[in-house]
């Protein structure tokens, strides 16, 4: 697994900008955007091959350059959103990778988990307690005639 150090500052800034386009911060839900430094660190660390993620960011910048003669980080919010949409259309596989890495890092952040009313912890060792449920619902099924075919 790679660490953040495999990326240049420019690459990390591009990653943060794109991550914030994918999941922006929300004051209504009291959550950071996915471009938050801690979350971004997780996105970068999640790439099993740094060069693949670097290629994704280069593709994004190529699109920004082709349409706006600018790096992605220098674009307005509106232009970033529009280049990101273009990126999804033209580089579906790369967009899929960054999307997955972003979700994997974002939805384990303690601030995000708190906003979802989850304890900020892994499942093990505490586990969870779902309700048992009402097993009397099974009563009508118990009364059914056999529905398997005899094979003799």
């Amino acid at each position, binding site marked *: 697994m790679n660490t953040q150090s495999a990326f240049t500052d420019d690459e990390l800034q591009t990653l943060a900008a794109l991550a914030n386009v994918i999941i922006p911060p929300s004051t209504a839900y009291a*959550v950071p955007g996915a471009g938050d430094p801690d979350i971004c660190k997780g996105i970068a660390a999640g790439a099993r091959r740094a060069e693949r993620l670097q290629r994704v960011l280069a593709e994004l910048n190529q699109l920004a350059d082709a349409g706006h003669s600018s790096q992605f980080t220098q674009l307005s919010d509106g232009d970033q959103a529009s280049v990101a949409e273009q990126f999804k259309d033209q580089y579906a596989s790369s967009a899929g990778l960054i999307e997955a890495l972003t*979700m994997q890092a974002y*939805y384990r952040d303690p601030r995000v988990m708190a906003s979802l009313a989850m304890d900020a912890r892994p499942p093990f060792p505490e586990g*969870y307690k*779902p309700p048992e449920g009402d097993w009397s619902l*099974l009563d009508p*099924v118990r009364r*059914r005639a056999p529905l398997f075919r005899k*094979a003799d």
Partner: protein
Amino acid sequence: MTDQTVDVLIIGAGASGAAMAWSLAETKMHIVCLEQGPLMNPLTYPSASMDWEQQAAGEMNTNPNVRNLPSDYPINEDDSPIKIANFNAVGGGTILYAGHFPRFHPSDFRVNSLDGVADDWPIDYAALAPFYAENERMTGVAGAAGDPAYPQDNATRVPPLPLGQSGEVLAKGFNKLGWHWWPSDTAIITEEYDGRAPCINLGACGTGCAQGAKGSSDVTYWPHALRAGVELRTRCRVREITVGDDGMATGASYYDGNSKEQRINAHVVIMACNGVGTPRILLNSKSAQFPDGLANSSGLVGKNLMFHPYAMIQGVFDEELDGYMGPHKAIRSQEFYETDADRGFVRGYTLEIQRGMAPVRTAMTGLRHKRIRWGEGHHDDYRRMFKRMTGMVAVCEDLPEAHNQVTLDPVLKDSDGIPAPKISYTLSDNSKRMMDHAVGKATEILKAAGATDVISEAPLMWGGWHLMGTARMGRNPETSVVNEWGRSHDVRNLFIVDGSIFTTSAGVNPTNTIQALALYVADQMKSRLATLFD
């Protein structure tokens, strides 16, 4: 290269190899099992880490090409719409399985007689019933007796997994339609069992059970087999089974953990590598006597590959459900299991309820189905789905077709230079019609249960969990690879005990049947020891 002779060599320490090793151990023979993967440490499973869902998508992915661990071999699956799911370790695929543990139905062994398709098995439900019971006792199965979809059984069961909010909502939907449902027989213990602690609802069954409550064969059979004297060698990858001038198997050549070639001689060789691994080794075992691969005079090694084509159908509800809490399984329906000609296809399927989804999976599902957007709408979209989804998969019976097959890739090799398998598979029209039917019926249930939105996907591309049929069982050596008790027609000291010997696939998860078959073959071997090679 070392050279040693043992009584029995088992290749593969997964579901079937474990059951076979345990059962044969009572003979006091010298039994060695070679496994290409490691012995897992449950405390290191992803669910003990915050990034567990990331690990599930990477190093603990079900697909070996994505996972790409040192214990994995690559598989060319470009010619298949369904990708292989497996795991290479002691416990095999049971490390990652969800633990759904149904039996086959009696009709599943008589497909040709009842429906005029495929072939009947050379054994029947009654022959396997005692071995199902033994397997369930060894594994620890949660469930409830009295399911009208099955004959009465004598299974040992602990209380069922929680029905939960999700199960309750769907049960009401089934009841409204008057359709069958039942608590799933699941290899997850709900109370202490055989020294193992009960399920604590981690909701991460598919990444290995850190609690040890899920009945993967590394925690069920292997501790007993090892105590009984079976020798287990990990990180040993078999290249080929060797044969003598008399056409009998003499043992195997394999690479140890240092990629050093080793040799082991054995009086009996037992294949337990499942529907892709077993034909791969047999096809790689070419010799002057067996130029087309070992045990392959019928030409059927690798042929008739069956998956269970899966359809996934999920509903979004207004109320909060179980979400990330609890085992993936709760209940199942077999309302559409047995053949009904009016449906436009033969055979049938099980609807296997999936409780809910963890946070990342919720996001990925919503994004894939365009219910969750990038940008400003993301948070609202996500919260409409988080803890508000439940649904099911349809496990559809796949019929054997010779063109669906495992062959050896002419180029691709593993890290030891052993030719890798290539999968060629197309969905049959029968399977497509069955999946369409399942999506329609599941949608009806979800709507009856109150779903406000339904999403579906068929076939599930990453759903190649069940690998069957590639060394089929039968009485006729021209149309099968092994006989009715698992012995190769061609090589009288070679046995196969995994999913590759299935004659047909049924419409349920196969692990209980794989292990029951292994116990049945072991029992046959033990009862014929004096004449085993006649």
